[in-house]
């Protein structure tokens, strides 16, 4: 029987995907990794798309950048959407482009009215150009801005309300940021509009010590930690059942390990449903 939870499709597993069809519920691909229009990437995505529901997850649009949207990038995303007909399309609440050059990282925004107006209008423009609703994901962050007047969860809720976008709730990112900035992760999740949350991400992270202070860093390089599993159960209680994805991007283990994590996500969801019933 197939699992409900999905896993991130990553290049180190392409070989395994060529010869097997593990019982995961769905797949999510980083859109930019499959931008090439020839060779192995589109070929494998095409084949897997025939066997699994697919989500396209953008990492390169840098939606919150002040300079105009990269329309060439949007056009390529649109072509991918037309070709692969994904069930979900998502991006991040971040910026990364300045003066035409790209830092190719997910950089945090100040939570101000100015930034909110800007991102809401960008997300609106993106949804219009793609002709569909987009989910916007919360980041792991390592700093906060002195000017912020809103909490991150207030910013996300207002963004969803103003732009009509959905939210991709990354539970690991909530936990990482909560630890780094000292807020209550459950308060964050409980404050999100439940009906806007269209997907949940789970992943592992690292703990670093900088000048004797513990900082959690979003590496996607290990198993989901116990605290995040528990927070996931809490999140399901708030938003109800939504597609859940397990991501692993560095020190990528065998595909079976990801499948086992997806099975654990299903087990947590099962317990959460029982608690509600």
């Amino acid at each position, binding site marked *: 029987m197939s699992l409900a939870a999905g896993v991130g499709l990553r290049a180190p597993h392409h070989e395994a995907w060529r010869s097997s069809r593990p019982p995961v519920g769905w797949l999510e691909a980083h859109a930019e990794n499959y931008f090439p229009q020839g060779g192995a990437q589109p070929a494998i995505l095409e084949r897997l798309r025939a066997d699994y529901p697919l989500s396209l997850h953008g990492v390169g649009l840098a939606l919150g950048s002040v300079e105009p949207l990269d329309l060439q990038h949007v056009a390529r995303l649109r072509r991918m959407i037309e070709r692969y007909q994904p069930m979900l399309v998502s991006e991040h609440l971040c910026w990364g482009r300045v003066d035409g050059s790209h830092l190719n990282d997910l950089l945090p925004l100040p939570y101000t009215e100015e930034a909110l107006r800007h991102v809401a209008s960008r997300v609106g423009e993106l949804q219009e150009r793609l002709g569909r609703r987009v989910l916007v994901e919360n980041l792991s962050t390592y700093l906060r801005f002195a000017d912020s007047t809103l909490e991150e969860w207030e910013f996300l809720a207002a963004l969803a309300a103003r732009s009509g976008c959905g939210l991709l709730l990354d539970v690991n990112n909530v936990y990482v940021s909560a630890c780094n900035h000292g807020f*209550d992760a459950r308060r964050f999740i409980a404050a999100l509009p439940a009906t806007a949350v269209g997907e949940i991400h789970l992943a592992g992270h690292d703990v670093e010590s900088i000048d004797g202070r513990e900082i959690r860093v979003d590496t996607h390089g290990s198993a989901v930690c116990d605290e995040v599993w528990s927070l996931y159960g809490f999140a399901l209680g708030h938003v109800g059942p939504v597609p859940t994805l397990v991501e692993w991007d560095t020190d990528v283990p065998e595909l079976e390990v990801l499948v086992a994590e997806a099975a654990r996500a299903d087990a947590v969801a099962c317990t959460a449903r029982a608690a509600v019933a």
Partner: protein
Amino acid sequence: MHCAGGGGLSMAGAPTAGLPLAELQRRFAAALRAPDDAAPDATLLGALRDDGLPAARRLELYRRNVQGNFLKVLALEFPAIERLGGAAWFRQAGLDFLREHPSRSGDLHGIGAPFAGFLQRRLGATPHAYFADVAALEWAWQECLVAPDPDGSLDVGELASVAPRDVGVLRFVPHPALRLVGSRWPVFTIWDAHREPRADGDPPTIDLDRGGECAILRRSGEGAEARRCDPSTLAWLQALAAGQPFGDAWEVAISHDAGFDVARALAEAVRLGLFCGFRA
């Protein structure tokens, strides 16, 4: 769950009139791109909260991530250059390269394109001048891997039916993934010896003066394949790929090697799928 550490929840008392978003992003990006010894931007640091760890240290974490992401991609695209130069040299060269050639896209597939030219400028007058040609070969390989699939394939039967007197004016359409590389150094041998980690210890010593090498890179199945070729075949393929008529390309090849066997070369090119069509 409440995690320990960090500042409180209240944003009360935070200054309200801060940097406009555009200026904040410009300063933030400049700080992430700055060299190690750059002076900190006090205005930017003033816009960030310390929360128990100086803002400069927090910024440094982002700077390290940004550098690490780029270097990881560059190392994936140029594994032989990294092994030839060593990890420490590659890191420094990579960071200098990225300052000169910042990424222009949210898609990282293109960032390595100017790397061979950068190495040529940096090392052209040194004993490591050949790095630039090895890098050009590695980039050609990357392009070959992701180039678009062709719209159609060459019709061998149709080609065979062309009357001999008409063959000279034929122009061939190169497969989008075809890449042709020539060098005065043995780049193929060097690349082949350094592109993968070796289980049996150090790569062999290669005599740089043993003569130049040429290579054909092509789509094979869904992947790529590289093979050596002789200079006349390279010149012939380059002429055809540039759109020159078959007869002119043949003359180019003959100028390299009077005994160039064009019938054999064409049969081989068709067998390898180097062309996806032709027109009169």
